[in-house]
């Protein structure tokens, strides 16, 4: 049973078809990657799933609920949370506050509870804080609770963004180029971290450029080019797929012809 299923989704910007009748699925507990050259439409897919873009055709189903063309808030509440290609933390807030913003939808009190510090406020706030601390502890950010987000090293900022996503209570984490801008050591750490998330039962969908990361971590890979799906399969299948090589390296025959001309 697929946790997330996209059925022929299409997105057009004016005349440009950014995503063209794309279908894919992510099963419970899997790590699935979407790869493709620049401009293939990967981030557009993420924006469609998370409700930032409207979908022109097709349907997205998550956890037996249709989530296509629903508001981002509905989608977060349904259990999908994401990170961003260029880290978007709440920079002027502390690490713990960032994660507590993540607990927002699970924290159940209203404005007047806050104003009068009711029992419900105190209980919920204690629960939220404890949850935030537990999450931070579980991903080795426990020592940075009091720091401000923009003072963290780059790799930890990525990690905090994921912690924040987890705090929403998401079942599916969508990571947009998590290894972008990382050195080999940092991306190695990230790999282990993502694997540990999988072990904890999270389902993960990744867009990534770093082939090393993708090939090492994914259960399955979808390859996109010009908004279309051109291949899917296990990492080893993808690595030997001629269409994929063509999309990434250009047409081999063209290269040869150019060589002849010289």
């Amino acid at each position, binding site marked *: 049973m697929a946790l997330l299923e996209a059925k022929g989704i299409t997105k057009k910007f004016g005349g440009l078809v950014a995503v063209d009748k794309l279908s894919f699925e992510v099963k419970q507990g899997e790590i699935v990657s979407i790869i493709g050259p620049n401009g293939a439409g990967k981030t557009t897919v993420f924006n469609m799933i*998370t409700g*930032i873009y409207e979908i022109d055709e097709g349907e997205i189903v998550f956890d037996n609920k249709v989530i296509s063309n629903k508001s*981002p*808030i509905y989608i*977060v*509440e349904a259990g999908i*949370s*994401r990170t*961003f290609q260029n880290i*978007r*933390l*709440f*920079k*002027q*807030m*502390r690490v*713990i*506050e960032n994660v*507590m*913003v*993540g*607990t*927002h*939808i699970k*924290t159940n*009190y209203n*404005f007047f509870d*806050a*104003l009068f*510090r009711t029992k419900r*406020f*105190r209980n919920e*706030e*204690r629960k*939220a*804080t*404890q949850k935030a*601390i*537990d999450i931070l*502890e579980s991903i080795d950010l*426990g*020592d940075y*609770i*009091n720091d*401000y987000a923009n*003072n963290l090293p780059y790799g930890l900022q990525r990690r905090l963004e994921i912690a*924040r996503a987890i705090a*929403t209570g998401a079942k599916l984490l969508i990571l947009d180029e998590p290894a972008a801008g990382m050195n080999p050591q940092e991306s190695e750490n990230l790999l282990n971290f993502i694997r540990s998330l999988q072990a904890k039962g999270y389902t993960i969908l990744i867009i990534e450029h770093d082939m090393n990361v993708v090939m090492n971590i994914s259960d399955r890979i979808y390859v996109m080019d010009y908004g279309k799906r051109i291949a899917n399969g296990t990492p080893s299948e993808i690595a030997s797929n001629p269409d994929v090589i063509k999309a990434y390296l250009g047409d081999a025959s063209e290269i040869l012809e150019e060589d002849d001309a010289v």
Partner: protein
Amino acid sequence: MNMKKENKSLYTKAVITIGQLWENPIIKGIILLALALFVYFLPKMATLYFQRIAIMVAFYAIGAYTAVLLTTYRGTNYLVAVILGACLAGAFGALLALSTMRLSGTYVTIVTMAFFYVISSIILNWDSVTKGSVGVLNIPAPNLFGMKLTMKNGGIFYLIMFYAALTILATQLIINSKVGRAIKAVRDDEMAAIMMGINNKKYKIIAYTLAAFFAGLAGTLYGPFMGYINNATFNYDICISALVIVILGGIGTVKGAIIGAIIISPLGELLRGLTTFMKGLPEWMQISQPEQWRFVIYGMIMVIMMRFRPQGILGGQSKLPYKMPKGVERKVMK
């Protein structure tokens, strides 16, 4: 004999001067503090702090006029008038939030500026209600449960202190809750906040309404304190004073606003005192226009702070640890 008498009158004078020096500024300072505090709440979409303060002053005027008109001409109970004034200002805040929702950046700036002008224009021109530039005179002293609070018996002073405490407390309660965090998150990065399931529109409306409500509440104080209000009471100078307080103390901190208010508020009276003091000095050394000099100093504070410490005296990131609710602890200690 004569000498002694003169000395005594000088002494009395000094006491009175010092009294005035502090009484006025404290009251004004507290009103400004209330204005400055909630600037913090307005989302980034009101790009410019100045504009935020301009609309705060507009809300402040709405609160002031509502309360004053009700108590002076309708004989409404003071408390009822205050609540109505603050609520009306809050309603205008919500309205402004709704109408600027679609716009961004510069355009929000101009709409909020326009809002300030529309409100001042209405105050000036709607003669039959607001009494235009003549203003509302003989505002009655607040009557709380049969007790008249005047300047003479110090009642107004305590009332104002009470409001200040209330405002600071409310700010703290809201900031340290999911509501405050949501507002801060929307202010920091709206898209990321939405992706956390935060209803950005809802929290923008809440932020504007809160800011307007407390500005309105501060406004209801001004009438009874001064005894009269007119259109000139709510001008750009108040905006500038509040802006300077926020800039000096630190944008976005409660402590900063308090420190800023303490430093800035007595400045006008100090300069006035200085003018009197300098009367004996040669002409070229005298400061003849304390009010104008005050604004020149305000301008300098802004320029200098922006250049050397844009986050303000107490602004920027707090070094104190995050205050945890009781019963929360780290399980693993490394």
